[in-house]
């Protein structure tokens, strides 16, 4: 593995670590001192150099180790990757989007050569080289969705569009915040969002769906979601909840800084060209509380957000029982000073 990629684990000894550079570019999701669900979507346009928005698909220092973790999850539970039969074309669309983006944005790591439908893909960090025929499944070791998402950080779902709705009908889901692809596959937009509190009543999902149905090719959008995770565990699946649930009871003032992580999902939405499906990459970033509080504005703000977030949200996100401890820890880093709007660090 090259110097650019960490040798680390997201299970067992949890050797995952963010470098100072990774902390600096962490996508802190709160533009203000309070949080409530909203239709928070903006164009997914290239952001500042070095930021997680610089490229369509961010490849960072955790890439190689995350892909190793995904392979382990899939070996345990192959149902984490599923695609209903009519979604294969959307899988090819996604493969094309990712290969073209990565080859364009990271030419030193990825190369894509095309000669008509004969494609040649090189992935240097994972030491993969593949010649295949685009749109011919028999020329890849597995389906196109599984093939490309075993090489791309973040979970992915593919939504078919029909009857004025979206249906989640394919996905690779190994780093999820407690929802099951196997259970949800085939559901409509309102159905798979059914467990979310408050947002239906606020009209968030009706408006978001209306917007998405009109999503245009070449004009992707993005939004943030967030939750809390004890230890840098990527696989917080409901399937394995009996394994990770008990860790929530082991937090103390002494270990919370090291073990409690803010988990941020950078979600993007892309219209796909042939299938007219929508691809939904869900990229999870983890940061320990002790690393997060090194940025004074983030420390102040996270304290206020966690203290005031409505109880139904804290319950749904699964941190209600530890909220008092989180607030106690974070309050040490909140001097009550005002914070500036926007999520970037103060120029201090």
């Amino acid at each position, binding site marked *: 593995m090259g110097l650019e990629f960490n040798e680390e684990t997201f299970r067992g000894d949890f050797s995952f670590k963010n470098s100072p550079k990774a902390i600096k570019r962490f996508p802190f999701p709160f533009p203000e001192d309070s949080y409530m669900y909203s239709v928070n979507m903006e164009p997914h346009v290239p952001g500042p150099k070095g930021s997680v928005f610089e490229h369509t698909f961010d490849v960072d220092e955790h890439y190689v180790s995350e892909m190793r973790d995904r392979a382990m999850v899939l070996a345990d539970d192959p149902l984490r990757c599923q695609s209903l039969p009519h979604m294969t074309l959307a899988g090819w669309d996604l493969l094309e989007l990712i290969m073209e983006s990565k080859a364009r944005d990271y030419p030193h790591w990825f190369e894509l050569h095309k000669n008509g439908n004969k494609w040649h893909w090189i992935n240097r960090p994972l030491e993969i080289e593949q010649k295949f025929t685009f749109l011919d499944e028999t020329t890849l070791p597995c389906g196109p969705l599984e093939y490309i998402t075993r090489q791309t950080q973040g979970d992915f779902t593919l939504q078919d569009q029909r009857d004025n709705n979206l249906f989640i009908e394919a996905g690779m889901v190994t780093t999820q915040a407690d929802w099951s692809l196997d259970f949800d596959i085939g559901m409509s937009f309102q159905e798979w969002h059914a467990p979310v509190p408050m947002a239906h009543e606020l009209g968030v999902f009706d408006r978001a769906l209306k917007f998405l149905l009109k999503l245009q090719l070449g004009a992707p959008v993005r939004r943030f979601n967030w939750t809390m995770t004890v230890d840098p565990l990527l696989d917080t699946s409901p399937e394995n909840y009996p394994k990770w649930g008990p860790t929530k*009871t082991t937090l103390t003032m002494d270990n919370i800084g090291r073990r409690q992580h803010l988990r941020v999902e950078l979600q993007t939405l892309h219209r796909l060209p042939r299938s007219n499906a929508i691809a939904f990459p869900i990229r999870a970033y983890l940061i320990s509380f002790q690393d997060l509080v090194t940025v004074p504005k983030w420390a102040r703000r996270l304290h206020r957000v966690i203290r005031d977030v409505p109880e139904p949200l804290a319950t749904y996100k699964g941190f209600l029982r530890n909220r008092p401890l989180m607030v106690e820890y974070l309050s040490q880093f909140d001097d009550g000073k005002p914070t500036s709007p926007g999520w970037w660090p103060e120029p201090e």
Partner: protein
Amino acid sequence: MTNSVLEGTMRSRPVYGVLEPRPGKAHLIVADGEGAGAVVDLVARAGETAPAMLARTHIIYMPGPNGTDAFESLKALGAAQAFRTHDYSTAQPRLKKVLGDAHMGLQIYTTGTEGLMGQVLRDVMEAGLPAQAVQTEHRGSTVRRVQCVHCKGITENVRTDPFQCSHCGLHLFVRDHYSRRLAAYQGVNIDAEDPGEVPPAVERFK
């Protein structure tokens, strides 16, 4: 469609209606337990068109999870075919054959417990028939079909919340989140965070 009166408001839960006779080349009725009463009402609603409808009707019936067996009331209707079986899995090969042979204009009616209707809807969709061809009406027991999200095993006829998974033995609470594809609610380990602390089971579904 009238809404069901079952508890819970989660948007993934199906909504059931009242069976109405619709013109069709053939009629397939799948019912269990108290659903027999809804079938009798359906035929009554057909009025003078009932004999013509019954001449093209195939009824598949099984007792409900609470033991209710009203097959005699269905046999008395005089449908072209009336078949009684033990449970859904024994009915399934016959149902799949009928769905596979179906022509345009088949009307499908299913009534009784949620577990039965959910499985019929699933098998109809799997057979490639439009879901609009199916009408549903809930009658009788409210016991649930639940998938354990951990081991993926399905437990039929769940009465209490929490309950013990019949496959892996974990104690599960029953969510209102419902999957049409699995025709099941979701069960999640209730003592995951505090192993051993299982609250007493409450009879939520009868």
